[in-house]
């Protein structure tokens, strides 16, 4: 079997397992999995930029929030039908990424991190500034009546799980394909040695801008889906914490692997979930585990797998 067909099989396999899990897991855990899949879309978007292209943004929450508010505000205040509002949210995130990318990509390294952080901070303050519409920190709820598509109730556990799975599946397969294209391979080349890539005749700046927009679009999809499935839009999702989360997820799961983000979100979610059942100082447990993982698996869980057994892991 070629590496390519192994990789295809792996991706399909993951989706089949996620499909089956709904029927196996207790309701509570199925609910968790819905959330994990949506957040994994966010992590996958971030991973395209950080894991594949080597650009560390500390402001991705603004793209997640753009998707979330773009969807939430137009459906709540504008009364737009769900699919249109959803599309609008995603486009908001893409346009924001284009503008931010145009300016931020003039910088590299630490400066890029700081510039993206500043833009995200601005986005957060904009949300608070327009509190009349966004209700600021308190946020707003999207009514149950608005959370259905084609008669499917997205507030039911079943509707929620399979919508999350559908959106996760589409993004997962799209990204798996994307990283195998010449464009995807050039991104890895930029990560490895940008100067060399440029001197092979590739326009590295254009590649970086493109992938930042694509990364922003995926983050926007995640934000809009989150609002759609869980019915809440709030400024918390625009805070710096939500910019750091995808970084931690991706580092844990394995940067530059297609499966890593899902593993990272799953691992982190349950790490917090389980440890908080034992102690109030659960962040301490999380911290220790993170330190250990960084020490012993610096390339994340999927990175470790790739190094030890599954060398073909995309």
């Amino acid at each position, binding site marked *: 079997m070629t590496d390519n067909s192994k990789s295809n099989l792996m991706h399909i396999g993951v989706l089949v397992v996620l499909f089956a899990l709904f029927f196996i897991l207790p309701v509570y855990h199925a609910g968790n999995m819905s959330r994990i899949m949506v957040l994994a879309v966010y992590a996958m978007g971030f991973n395209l930029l950080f894991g594949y292209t080597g650009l560390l943004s500390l402001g991705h929450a603004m793209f997640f929030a753009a998707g979330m508010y773009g969807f939430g505000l137009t459906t709540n205040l504008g009364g737009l039908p769900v699919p249109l509002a959803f599309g609008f949210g995603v486009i908001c995130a893409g346009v924001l990424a284009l503008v931010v990318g145009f300016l931020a990509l003039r910088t590299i390294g630490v400066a890029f991190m700081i510039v993206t952080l500043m833009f995200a901070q601005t986005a957060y303050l904009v949300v608070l500034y327009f509190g009349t519409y966004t209700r600021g920190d308190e946020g707003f709820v999207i009514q149950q009546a608005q959370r259905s598509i084609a008669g499917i109730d997205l507030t039911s556990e079943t509707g929620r799980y399979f919508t999350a799975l559908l959106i996760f599946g589409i993004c997962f397969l799209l990204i798996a394909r994307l990283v195998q294209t010449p464009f995807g391979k050039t991104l890895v*080349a930029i990560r*490895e*040695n940008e100067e*060399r890539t*440029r*001197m*092979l*005749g*590739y326009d590295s700046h254009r590649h970086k801008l493109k992938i930042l927009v694509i990364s922003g679009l995926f983050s926007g999809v995640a934000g809009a889906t989150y609002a759609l499935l869980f019915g809440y839009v709030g400024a918390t999702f625009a805070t710096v914490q939500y910019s750091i989360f995808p970084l931690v997820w991706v580092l844990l799961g394995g940067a530059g692997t297609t499966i890593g983000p899902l593993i990272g979100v799953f691992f982190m979610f349950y790490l917090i979930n389980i440890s908080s059942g034992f102690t109030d100082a659960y962040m301490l447990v999380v911290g220790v585990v993170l330190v250990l993982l960084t020490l012993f698996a610096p390339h994340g869980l999927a990175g470790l797998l790739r190094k030890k057994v599954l060398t073909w892991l995309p």
Partner: protein
Amino acid sequence: MAAVNILETRGLSKSFGGVHANSDVDFELARGKVTALIGPNGAGKSTFVGMVSGRIEATRGQVLFEGADISHLPAHKRIQLGLAYTFQITSIFAGLSVEENVALAARRLLAGQPEALVKRVTSVLARVGLSDRAVQIAGDLSYGHQRILEIAMGLAQEPKIFILDEPTQGLAESEVDDFITLVRALAGETTILLIEHNMRVVMETADMIAVLDQGRMLAEGTPDDIRANADVQAAYLGTSTDA
């Protein structure tokens, strides 16, 4: 008929603050020939090819490629026109496999043709003798093999002009022999601009030699002309011991 010169520079100059790395360099690169650019350390050779390839912005002057002024094109556009550049300090994709390194070089031209790409990669690796190391991680190669991989990445682009910045630096004598054979085989296929310190390589491969000294073009001519040139002897061959 195609012009005799594939590349020309006119008054090309570069100053770093008060230091004049290159001053008014007029240079002509003959199509299909191997031209060696030599000169003592610090003569401005790397700065010169840096300006030709677009890595370094010129302070003044023009670069003409096939008659067209490319002075204001960014590096990647010049590469797209058919220039290939190998780095003086090995610059490969250390984390990727040898074949992916070469594939990246070729893929810009063969993006939509996976079969042609595989064929090109295979033939280039065979040509430089790296076939049995194709799946190795490039960073794990020995220094000499990494230098050869640099050259392979240039070849994979099938360039019109192939700029080699001190390609034999740090190679073993036997590897230098292989390199000389390779450059000779390439002569006629493409135009080569070779920056080289190793005089044996220069004398055995070059059709033409250009000598830079203190940022100025001191002499240009055939190897015999250069050997006989009194200025060159004074500036370089006669007095310098680092050749």
